């Protein structure tokens, strides 16, 4: 799977309360989540984000609560992939489970507005601004399998069990 999009760069420890505040989480309406995504980090993000755009962050992206509304809000806003130095554990699982690809990169030279090309299957990020390539960390096989089915719902529909 090859994705292309523009980078939106944010810092370290972007917690789930800032990805989608608790007051907006009690809904099954994905558009409502998308309308408030990241508003306490960047109030304009939900207005400027374009389908296919990518979030690029620092350490510990998604720390805090277990709310799956965090990756759902990001996905519903049209973001195709989140790239970060590291992810909080629950967020990592949640994103893969709903079919939002993540790439863990120890270092990168990316600024907001750069065009990126991401090879999700092989975890490679191509920086089209300066032609640098970055190799992402390998995910456990079980996660690769879940992501290749576009999430845990489709995975369990198909395989019926984990073993």
């Amino acid at each position, binding site marked *: 799977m090859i994705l292309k999009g523009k980078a939106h760069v944010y810092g370290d*420890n972007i*917690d789930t*309360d*800032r990805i989608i*505040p*608790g*007051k907006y*989480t*009690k*809904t*099954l309406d994905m558009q409502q989540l998308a309308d408030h995504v990241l508003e*306490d980090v960047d109030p304009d993000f939900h207005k400027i984000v374009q389908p296919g755009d990518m979030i690029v962050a620092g*350490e*510990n992206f998604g*720390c*805090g*609560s*277990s*709310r*799956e*509304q965090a*990756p*759902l809000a990001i996905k519903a806003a049209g973001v195709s992939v989140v790239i970060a130095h*590291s992810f*909080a*554990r*629950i967020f990592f*699982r*949640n994103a893969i*489970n*709903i079919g939002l690809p993540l790439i863990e990169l120890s270092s990168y030279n990316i600024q907001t507005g750069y065009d990126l090309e991401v090879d999700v299957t092989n975890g490679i990020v191509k920086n089209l601004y300066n032609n640098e390539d970055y190799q992402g960390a390998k995910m*456990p*096989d*079980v996660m690769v399998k879940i992501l290749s089915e576009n*999430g*845990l*719902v489709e995975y*369990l*529909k198909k395989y*019926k*069990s*984990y*073993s």
Partner: protein
Amino acid sequence: MEQTLIEKIISNHSSHPVMAGDIAIVDVDLVMATDTTGPLTIKAFENMGGTEVWAPEKMVLVIDHASPAPNEGIAVLHDLMRKFAKEQNIKLYDVGDGICHQLMIDHEHVKPGQLVLGADSHTCTYGALGAFSTGVGSTDLAGAMLTGQTWVKVPETIKINLTGTLPEGVVAKDLILHLVGKLGIQGATYQAIEFTGEVIERMTLDSRMVMANMVIEMGAKAGLVDLKGLDLPYEFDMLQPDKDANYIQVLNVDVSNLEIQVAAPHSPDNIKNISEIGDVSIQQAFIGSCTNGRLEDLHAAAEILKGKKIHPNVRLIIAPASRQVFQDALSDGTVEILSAAGASFLPSGCGPCVGTHQGIPGNGENVASSTNRNFQGRMGNRNSNVYLGSPAFVASAALHGKIINHNECKKEAIDSL
């Protein structure tokens, strides 16, 4: 094969023994979801083709995060949960029963040595009972509802050995805040923590729950509290790690000189000694949450507020962790003391902690709170500042209208006698 506690528990739930780093398919003893995560969980379960939960007696639903419903949209979600619980014959705790983690322990849904998944990040609280319990999202929980299993990566373990004696007025909350500050917000990501030592052995169950509850604030998957010294109303196996188990890190902490600890805005690892805080006025004070809304917490507040009135500029809000806690505090006179001092009581639930309703601070306001997170906007307003501390810290702030060292206040009161 010498194993840590979590390696043992996961091995006991897997088809073969495992060590840190292994991926294991495990049998789950219990699953739990709340009104933040439950509706999405139910939808995911149905989308997976689920019609019957694998074991209805091993599932619990709790309406606690926006409870009672503050608006029509949420009322509809609550009803969706009630309907599902009824159809599937699942135990549901409704409005006012209490906060999920308190109910899971008090009603003995969780026992030592079990493996529990909860669609709430503070599910790690049951580590107080020596259970491996961890927070997952809605879809992971739906997968367990369908199959009775999940997959886990067996975590490495940090051992924290706590020695000495906590000074008077310094409690489990100060200790866990100190450790969150020391390890940092991602200091234990993907790892488990074992708490052990004489300090733990003397702790009440309430205090052990405080320790396990906030390990997620270091990114940990689980926080297992040594069962030594724990008294439970039933018999249980005192599962212990092997003597030569492999730890990624061993921390020895002498608690004897620990000061009162405060997490300053806007991160739970922004920890300061109270003496470093300076002059901070307080407009709202909140005692409650799965971290510190238990009986010993209300007692600590009542000890400070007995016969006094809170500062006129402060709103003191209290949400007991469960109806049982409220009733116990009613019958022993604690509620009367706190109410007479000016506290407002809310139904048991999570509301103010997670910013859903019933106590959203105003612009520029400072809040003293006994909860677990103070990320920007956590309590529902990004333009407010939340200071986390123990219930005694919150009660003192409510009394004086500013952050103040309750130990020094006590000393001054004694000196002036």
